């Protein structure tokens, strides 16, 4: 790796990252962006420079390609990080706050699960999934129902240990929708929370609104696929692995054939 870069190269690398921070912008719509993406793919020195600039800013380059553009992720404690605390509705009661966060997180997981129903869909770069508010809520509720059926004889939560209640109970108990005086969506309900999650993901360039059917229908973007596949799914999987609730599948035992080329 050469140490001396022309300042023009550094500017170009930073510009590529700046494009990446505008999630709705795609290389297909911007000539400069497309050029930078092409250069990233062809020029390994430029690629390394881009990674170095990103690392200095507190970012990770997950992937740069013509469909998704530059897909970035924030490292821990980076200024670019979106914290769950700032996303979840602030509840005044402490244990409630955790419940809200878990529900929001489950909804985001369910959105990815519905957008990419099979592992193949996540791996296939050309796959485009569809999600809708109704379906996301339905997927989680159905999973809750199956867990309920699977549950042994009496698994009603203990009255004096609410934090030991299983997550699916909290979700199943929350109403899907509620009538409000002004006819708006009640934010506390699961459909309200799903609507919020999908709008947020659309804002982040991960989903594109298609129609208002089924409470709002969206399609997934290549950027979302990269984000889920290269980082988010692994992050959650590692946590679950640490808790010992999932096992690494056999046959090669890695989740992906190759690790991503980051940092």
């Amino acid at each position, binding site marked *: 790796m050469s140490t001396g870069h022309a300042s023009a190269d550094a500017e170009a690398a930073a510009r590529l990252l700046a494009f990446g921070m505008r999630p709705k912008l795609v290389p297909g719509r911007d000539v400069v962006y497309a050029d930078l993406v092409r250069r990233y793919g062809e020029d390994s020195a430029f690629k390394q420079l881009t990674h170095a600039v990103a690392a200095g800013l507190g970012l990770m380059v997950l992937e740069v390609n013509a469909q998704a553009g530059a897909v970035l992720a924030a490292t821990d404690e980076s200024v670019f990080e979106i914290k*769950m605390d700032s996303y979840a509705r602030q509840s005044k009661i402490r244990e409630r706050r955790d419940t809200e966060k878990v529900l929001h997180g489950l909804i985001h997981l369910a959105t990815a699960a519905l957008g990419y129903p099979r592992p193949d869909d996540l*791996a296939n770069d050309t796959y485009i999934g569809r999600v809708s508010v109704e379906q996301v809520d339905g997927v989680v509720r159905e999973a809750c*129902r199956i867990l309920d059926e699977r549950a042994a004889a009496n698994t*009603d*939560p203990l009255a004096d240990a609410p934090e030991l209640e299983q*997550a699916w109970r909290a979700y199943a108990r*929350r109403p*899907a929708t509620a009538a409000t005086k002004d006819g708006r969506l009640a934010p506390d309900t699961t459909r309200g929370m799903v609507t919020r999650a999908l709008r947020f993901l659309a804002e982040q360039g991960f989903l594109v609104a298609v129609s208002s059917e089924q409470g709002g229908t969206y399609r997934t973007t290549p950027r979302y696929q990269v984000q889920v596949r290269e980082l988010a799914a692994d992050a959650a999987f590692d946590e679950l692995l640490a808790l010992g*609730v999932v096992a690494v599948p056999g046959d090669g035992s890695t989740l992906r054939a190759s690790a991503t080329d980051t940092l």
Partner: protein
Amino acid sequence: MRADETTADADEGLARRLKALACTAPLHDLDARKSKLDWADATVYQMAEIGLHTIDQVTIAMDFDTGADHQQVTRRLLPFIAAQAPDRTADEHARVARWVLDNLINVGTTDRGFRRVYGAVDADGAYRRRAFDFKLLVELAASDGEVYLRATDEAINVLVGALDTDVESAHVAAEVKLENLITRGRLADAKLAAEQARYRTVQYGEILRAKLDATRRDVRSVDWERELPELLDSALTHIESRFRAETAILKNITAARDEAEDPDHKRRAAELVDIVADCIRRHTQLQNRLQAAGAVFRAEQDRQQFSGPAQRSAVDVFGQLLTPTLDLPLSDALAPVEAYFRAGAGTTVPSVPSLPSLVSLLLRPAPERDHVVGEVPDPELQPADDVDAFTDDQWRQADALLDLPEVPRRLSGLLEEARTADPAVARLVALRAVHAYGPEVGGALRQSQQSVLLAVDDGAELDDPEIGGADLLLMSAAVDGDPGDPGDPRGEETGGDTGTGAGGLAGGGEDPVATDADGVERAPDLFDDTESIEEAAL
């Protein structure tokens, strides 16, 4: 071993009965709380009846796609409520209907449901308190975004009162009963049985709806090899037999309706015809769904199952992430979802204020309110009525009269003196004397007042042209500072006054033990009075 099994069985039954009992609690609760409503005297309404009727209405309106919305249900409730209190206004009836409906949904809580705690003995013999969460009416969104109501299984079970029965056999039993009742001419009972049969039909439809929904969502979640074909088969058989039975019944009652001469009899038979016709309509609907089920499965299988070979292995988000996370306790589930969110939410760009946008933001004209809420009406304000019965001057005069730090005085003397100045002052003095009988010493302590007026009844009659009662002995007593600290300088200072007067006044207060002891020590002769004050206060 056998004994253990018996215990476990008994406990399960107990828990089931406790849960069944819990489901009725919201209905009892309605009647318990109706007297506390501030917008109407609602005690004339039988709220539990209205509650059951509400659940009836919602259940009857339920079909495959939607149910009734809030307005429809309240509208259908109105005749029933009006019958209970015909002299009340229609507005009030509507409000009662909404109140009952809101309470059955439990509007106002986050989960919009009910929770009852019950105890159960675990497999390892330990007694544990568990929480049973249930709902009676749930709100769901239709495809057009409208909110509508459905009754839950718990509600239907409470209503029909058949907790642990097999849907199919109970249905058959109800049909047989109905036929018997008609042949014996007991139409009132027949109507009841027919209604029950309809609830069971709805319940049966609900089970099938859930299965079909699940299939549409994810083919793998439903066993299409055995479980569902069996279910569809049995459902079709069920419908076939019901069609036969109900058509026969319909023929019988139609005949009964036409032949009946008693108008009441005729009306009931007509109602029964409606119900059975509705049952048949529901069966038709169910059958249509059943026929479409196979097509749904094939279409979904095409969409979900067939695809090319995997290019590279990736995480199965549903099976490996979502389901395990859902099964975790809430406290453990937080870490994985937070990790997922942090990694999956993308990046945010810290907002940087730019001068041009800041300037334009500041210079932007204030939004015109009229477009938002319409014109704000100027409220017409009336000056508040003067509620003070006595003027400030009268209060001052009474204060001067009732400042009695040294020697207690009789009420009669005070009244006489007051009346010379102003008859109103005499009334004020009398009122304050009565108020001083059993004074709030605790309150005086909390508000750190310097002294409090005491009245003691020693049995003397008041001889007065205007006011009657006991000729009270009145006296100002100093309040002895902080009850927890008898050495308080203020307490020492006022000790002199207290000593001559009713020092042990704290007896009527909350529990300033130290003060009490102090007072008794200094003025033992007034101890009896203190006791009587205490009695009076109680």
